[in-house]
C-alpha cells in the first residue's frame, strides 16, 4: 500500500518535473505571466512529490534513503528543486528555471531508462551504513549538489547572454533580454557557490567522521572520496581565481559549468567506472 503510493509519488514527480521544465521554456519565449506561475506551481508540486516519495521510502524501509542509487538520485533531485525554488523566490529569477530544470529531468529519465524495478526497491542496509553521521552526510551532499546545479544553470545563462549581447550592447528583444544583467548573474553564481562550498566541506567532513566510526579510517583515498576532493579543489580554484585574479564573468561562468561536470562525475562516473568502497551504494 505505502509502496504503491511511493511509486505514484515517483511518477507524479516525473510528470511535474517534465511539465515545469517545458513551462519554464515556454514562459521564456511567451512572457505569459500565467504560464510562469504555472511553471513555479509545478516545481513546488515536484518538490512535494519528491519529499513524500522519500519519506514513504524511509517509512517502509526504516532507514535513510541511501541504500541504492535510486534513493540517492531522489535526494539529489530534491536538493536541486529546493535550492532552485529558494533562488527563484529570493531573487525573483524565474528565467533560471529553464536552465536548471533539465537537470532533474534528465536524472529522472536516467532512473526510468536504466534502473529496472528490482534496482529501485529498498535494499537491506549493511551494518556499516547504520550511522547518524551518514544522514548528515547525505543531507549536506543533497543541498551542496543542488546548489552546484543551480550555479551551473546561472553559468549557462551568463554564457548565453554574453554570446547574444556581444560587446555590451543591450538587447531589448529576444529571450536573453529577460535575463538579469550579466553582473547580477555573475554575482549570484558566486553567492550560490559560496553557499555550496562550506556545505560540500561539511559533507566531506561528516563522511570522514562516519568512516572513522565504521572502519577506523577517516580518509582512505577511495575513488569517491578522491573525486569529491577534486570537485572541492575545483571550486576552491573558482573562488580564488575570482578573488585574486578577478576572474569574473566568462571565465567564472565556465568554471561553474566545469565544476558541475566534476560533481556529476563524482556522482555517476565513480559508481559506474571506478571500483571502491562506495560501489555498494548502487
Amino acid at each position, binding site marked *: 500500500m505505502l509502496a504503491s503510493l511511493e511509486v505514484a509519488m515517483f511518477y507524479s514527480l516525473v510528470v511535474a518535473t517534465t511539465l515545469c521544465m517545458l513551462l519554464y521554456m515556454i514562459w521564456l519565449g511567451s512572457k505569459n505571466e500565467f504560464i510562469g506561475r504555472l511553471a513555479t506551481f509545478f516545481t513546488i508540486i515536484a518538490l512535494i512529490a519528491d519529499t513524500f516519495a522519500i519519506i514513504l521510502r524511509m517509512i517502509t524501509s526504516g532507514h535513510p534513503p541511501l541504500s541504492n542509487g535510486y534513493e540517492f538520485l531522489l535526494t539529489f533531485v530534491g536538493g536541486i528543486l529546493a535550492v532552485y525554488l529558494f533562488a527563484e523566490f529570493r531573487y525573483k529569477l524565474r528565467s533560471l528555471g529553464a536552465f536548471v530544470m533539465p537537470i532533474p529531468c534528465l536524472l529522472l529519465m536516467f532512473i526510468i531508462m536504466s534502473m529496472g524495478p528490482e534496482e529501485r526497491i529498498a535494499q537491506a542496509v549493511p*551494518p556499516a551504513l547504520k550511522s547518524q553521521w551518514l544522514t548528515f552526510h547525505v543531507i549536506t551532499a543533497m543541498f551542496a549538489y543542488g546548489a552546484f546545479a543551480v550555479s551551473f544553470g546561472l553559468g549557462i545563462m551568463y554564457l548565453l547572454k554574453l554570446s547574444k549581447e556581444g560587446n555590451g550592447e543591450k538587447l531589448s528583444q529576444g529571450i536573453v533580454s529577460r535575463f538579469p544583467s550579466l553582473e547580477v548573474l555573475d554575482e549570484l553564481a558566486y553567492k550560490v557557490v559560496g553557499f555550496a562550498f562550506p556545505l560540500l566541506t561539511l559533507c566531506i567532513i561528516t563522511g570522514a567522521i562516519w568512516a572513522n566510526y565504521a572502519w577506523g579510517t577517516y580518509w582512505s583515498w577511495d575513488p569517491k572520496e578522491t573525486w569529491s576532493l577534486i570537485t572541492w579543489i575545483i571550486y576552491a580554484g573558482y573562488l580564488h581565481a575570482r578573488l585574486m585574479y578577478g576572474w569574473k564573468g566568462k571565465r567564472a561562468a565556465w568554471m561553474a559549468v566545469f565544476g558541475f561536470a566534476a560533481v556529476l562525475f563524482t556522482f555517476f562516473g565513480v559508481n559506474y567506472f571506478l571500483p571502491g568502497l562506495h560501489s555498494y551504494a548502487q
Partner: protein
Amino acid sequence: MNENSKGIIDRLWGAFSSMKLGLTLLGIIAFVAGIGTVIPQEAMDQGKAQAVGGLWKTLGFTHLYSSLWFRLLLGLLCINLIVCSTKRLRSIYLRTFKLTPPSKLAQVPQKNKQVVKGELASLRESVQEFLRQKGFRVTLSDQSNPWSFIATKRRLGNWGSLITHLSFVVLVVGALLGSLLGFKGSFTEEAGKTLPIQAIQLSKGTVSETFSVSINSAEDRFLPNGERDNWYTDMSILENGQEVARDTLSVNHPFEYKGITFYQANFSNGARFTADMGGQKNPVVLQDQGQSYYKAPGTDLYLVANLSGSSSLKPSVLYQVYKGTGADPIQTGQLTSGQTIDVQGKYKLTFDSLAGFTGIQVKKDPGVAVIWLGCGLLLGGLLLAFYWQPLVISGILQSEKGKRGSLTVGVLSGKMPDSTRKALEQFVSSVTKMIS
C-alpha cells in the same frame, strides 16, 4: 656569502608567498589524485596493482597516496600556506582592530561613495544614531574639523580565510602524526579466546602495548524482518590477567582503550564439533566456506565445513572430507546439531553447535584529534569567510557655509559589490530621512 644566502631565502620566501604557486600545487594534487583513482592501488586491489607496468610501479603510482613525492607535494602546499598566512597576518590584524577614520576626502572609498547634504550637527547625530542602531562598531576622528568616522560590522569575518588556510596545515599535521605514531591491524577470533595485543596481524606500524584481548561472545544478530541487525562482540581488556575494561562493540560503535580503538569490521560463521577417535575426544572448530580444516591425527583426511544452509533457529552444517591432495571430496553430508557420523571408519564426528568468528580492526591513531580540530577550523573559517562578511563604512563631513555641510560616505566593495552597494544605499536613505 651572507648576502648571497639572504638572496636565496628572500627568493624562496617570495616564491612560496605566491598564490599562483599554491593554486598550481592544488591543481597538480587534484590531477595526480585523479590518476590514482584510475590506476589500481595496492591498498585497494593488490592483484591488479601488481599487474601494472613496471615504470608506473617504480614511480609510485600503485601506492600513490603514500608515495614520497605525493607527500612532498602536500608538504610544499603547507609551506606555501604558512608563508602566505604569515604575510597576510599584519594586514588582517590592522583591518580588524586598527581602522582609522579618513582625514581627507581621498581616503573615503572612491568606487562606492555617495554625498549627503544637510545641517552639520544633525548629520553628525543621525550618522551616529544609525550606526548604533545597526550594531556597528564606530571609531570617530580625534579632531572635529573635518569630522569623520569609520564603522565596521562583522569584523571577525576578516579572519575567515586565514583560519581556513591554516586548518589545511593542521589537517596535514594530523595525518602525519597518525602515519608516524600509529598502527593498524586486525584479528579474527572466536568467542572464549584470549589473545595478546602484540599477536594481531599488522598492516602498518608497530604495537608497544602489552595488554590482552578476551572475546566473551560474538554474535551475528538479525532483525525480526530477516534483515541483518549488526554484528556484536563482547570484549574485555586484560592487564596481567585482570579485566580492566569491558564493552560490547558493533559496526559503527567502536570501543577505545588507552588510545587504541577496536572496530567491528566483519564476521564469519563457523561450527563446533567433537571428533571421537577411539574414545579420545577432541574439540574441533571450523570456519565457514573451508577457510579452515581439520586433519585428524594419524590420517590423511581433511574435514571442511560449509554453513550456507544454516539458520540460527535450525543450525546445520554441510561437511566434506577430502583424502590427501584429492580434488574431490570422498565423503559429504549434512549434520544437524547433536548428530554424529562416522568418518571413513577412522573417527566419529559430532556437530555440537554454531560458532561465531568476529573480525576486529585495531587502530591507534594519535592524529585523529588533530584531524577533528583541523576539520573544525576549516568549517569555522569557511563560515566566517562566506557568512560573516565584514562591512566597513567610512565618511567625512565637510562644512560649506555656516551650519551646513556635505557628508561623503563610502563602503569598501569587498567580495560582493552588489550587496555592499545596497548597504550604502540603505545608509544614505536612512540618514537622509533622519535629518529631514
